């Protein structure tokens, strides 16, 4: 057993050079403490840590996240407080508006961070929604196959054909403008891609020998999906998720840009960029700061996604 030679070989060789019989060695090895294995996840994690771009991005994103969560508490201003003395004020340390103020004198530093909360929240929640629905839906369709698969995937096709903007406007008209609706609308569209990806992966995984072996062992379908299918397609899904979050953030920005997103005085990065773009010539700081936060976040997420892809399937990349 090549794997175990290292475990018992070194000691016996030193004590008793030649005449240690294989049986004795085996018996001795039985007494050895348990060896810890290294799972594929741990392997991937170690590879990810070696990827400089991904590590830097991850650190940056973590700092950004902390700043977005706790930053607003550091500033003396509220995100909707109007400082009448400092309307359209350029960034200055003297009056405490480090990022400047906007057209109605609100502090841009606080507004950028509060807007970040919304943008990141939309990104995370909408992605989570699409993850939950998409993975379950795709795994069930792929695993059970046949007519169920046909029906489920045709339904996805129908959803695909629905114009997204129309859906959003319709939701807004029926339920009124609300932040939850944005989650629902974006999540409802994004799970379609996820379902297709997961279904494809499941189709190839369900014919593997270990799934067959699980069937022979009498494992029930739900347990097969949970224990054998999902962990093995999680790599692909995780990469897709890290690339979906920036996409969702962008969609939210786009909706806000069109005036369909969050409602004043609440804001998001998209809404701030929209405001800033209108006063770009007279007050460039109103565009620069939110845009900087937005792009840095997107870059970081994309680099992490890239790093994850390299770490999770090392075969495809040298």
């Amino acid at each position: 057993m090549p794997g175990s030679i290292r475990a018992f070989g070194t000691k016996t060789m030193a004590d008793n050079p030649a005449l240690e019989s294989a049986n004795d060695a085996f018996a001795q090895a039985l007494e050895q403490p348990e060896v810890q294995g290294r799972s594929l996840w741990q392997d991937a994690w170690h590879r990810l840590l070696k990827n400089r771009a991904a590590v830097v991005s991850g650190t940056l994103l973590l700092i950004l996240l902390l700043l977005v969560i706790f930053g607003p508490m550091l500033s003396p201003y509220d995100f909707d407080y109007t400082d009448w003395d400092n309307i359209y004020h350029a960034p200055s340390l003297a009056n405490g508006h480090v990022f400047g103020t906007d057209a109605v004198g609100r502090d841009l530093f606080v507004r950028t961070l509060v807007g970040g909360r919304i943008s990141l929240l939309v990104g995370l929640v909408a992605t989570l929604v699409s993850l939950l629905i998409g993975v379950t839906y795709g795994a069930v369709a792929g695993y059970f196959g046949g007519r169920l698969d046909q029906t489920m995937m045709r339904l996805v096709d129908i959803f695909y054909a629905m114009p997204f903007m129309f859906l959003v406007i319709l939701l807004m008209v029926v339920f009124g403008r609300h932040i939850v609706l944005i989650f629902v609308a974006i999540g409802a569209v994004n799970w379609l891609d996820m379902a297709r990806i997961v279904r494809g992966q499941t189709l190839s995984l369900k014919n593997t020998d270990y799934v067959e072996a699980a069937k022979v062992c009498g494992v029930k379908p739900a347990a097969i999906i949970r224990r054998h299918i999902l962990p093995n397609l999680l790599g692909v899904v995780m990469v897709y998720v890290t690339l979906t979050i920036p996409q969702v953030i962008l969609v939210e920005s786009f909706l806000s840009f069109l005036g369909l997103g969050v409602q004043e005085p609440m804001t998001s990065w998209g809404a701030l960029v929209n405001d800033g773009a209108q006063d770009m010539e007279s007050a460039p700081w109103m565009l620069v700061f939110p845009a900087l936060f937005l792009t840095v976040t997107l870059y970081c997420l994309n680099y992490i996604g890239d790093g994850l892809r390299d770490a999770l399937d090392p075969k495809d990349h040298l």
Partner: protein
Amino acid sequence: MSKPLLKVQDVRVHFPVETGGWFQREKKVLKAVDGISFELQPGETLGVVGESGCGKSTLARAILGLIKPTRGRVVWMGEDMASLDPESLRQKRKELQIVFQDPLAALNPRLNVGEIIAEPLKTFYPSMQRVQIRERVKGMLKMVGLLPNQINRYPHEFSGGQCQRIGIARALILNPKLIVCDEPVSALDVSIQAQIINLLKDLQRKLQLSLVFIAHDLSVVRHISDRIMVMYLGRAMEIACKGTIYRRPLHPYTSALVKAVPIPDPVKERRKRETGLTGHVPSPLHPPSGCVFRTRCPYAVERCEADVPPLRALSDDGLVACHEAENFDLSIARSEEE
């Protein structure tokens, strides 16, 4: 004779296949397994040999109930598997297990060895204590010749032969009565092949297992089998005791297979006469009429084209599917090369 453990009666597995272009859809039937019958006694090993694509693996899956036979019956200890409801079929899974060809592909790469081997236990005895399960798994690891302290390792940290041992351990943990080995050694080195076959033999003796041992090579099967079934294009050509198959094959195909086994002596090997088997296996979508082997058979006569030869008893310990079997002598002259 005691009551057979497994009775396979005229099992057929047919797959519908669509061929042709956009406008001329042709529906065809691929007869992967076409009328196989045999019985297996407790503790017996049946070797199944045949070229690739002759339906060996499909037969294995039909026996295990992973594929529903199109026709025919698989009777397990007197019960027809097809008549069981899903839950009783699931309970039967404790008694029938499988070992796969590709040792690494048969193990979930995300689970460690302990979890892989424990899965059948957890499925059937959900109330079993974790410590107890771990003890059982460790005992099983020892039994298949692995170190119990490797229990936390993952499949990719083992060699092919070790992975096959893990697969065997998983198959054995529920104390099954029958293990179907689907080419368990063809992906391994020759020296490892011998280890695994000896392990299976030992375990069989210790645990009174029955084996259905599938291989595409007679030399592998001869060490472990009591009886051997030779398959060609989904049909059984010959079923007989190991000695008969090797010394006095009755079917021309069996004789060709036996002659194709390399002799581990280069001088003798070079002196060996040609096997006389040429050409390829015909497509199972268009099998020859009559005897499926007739297109490659050196002894084929007119009758072979018209009639399907039934399996019939020619000697006292074997069955053969050939019209002409009594008209030629295929005895292998060369001595046992062991």
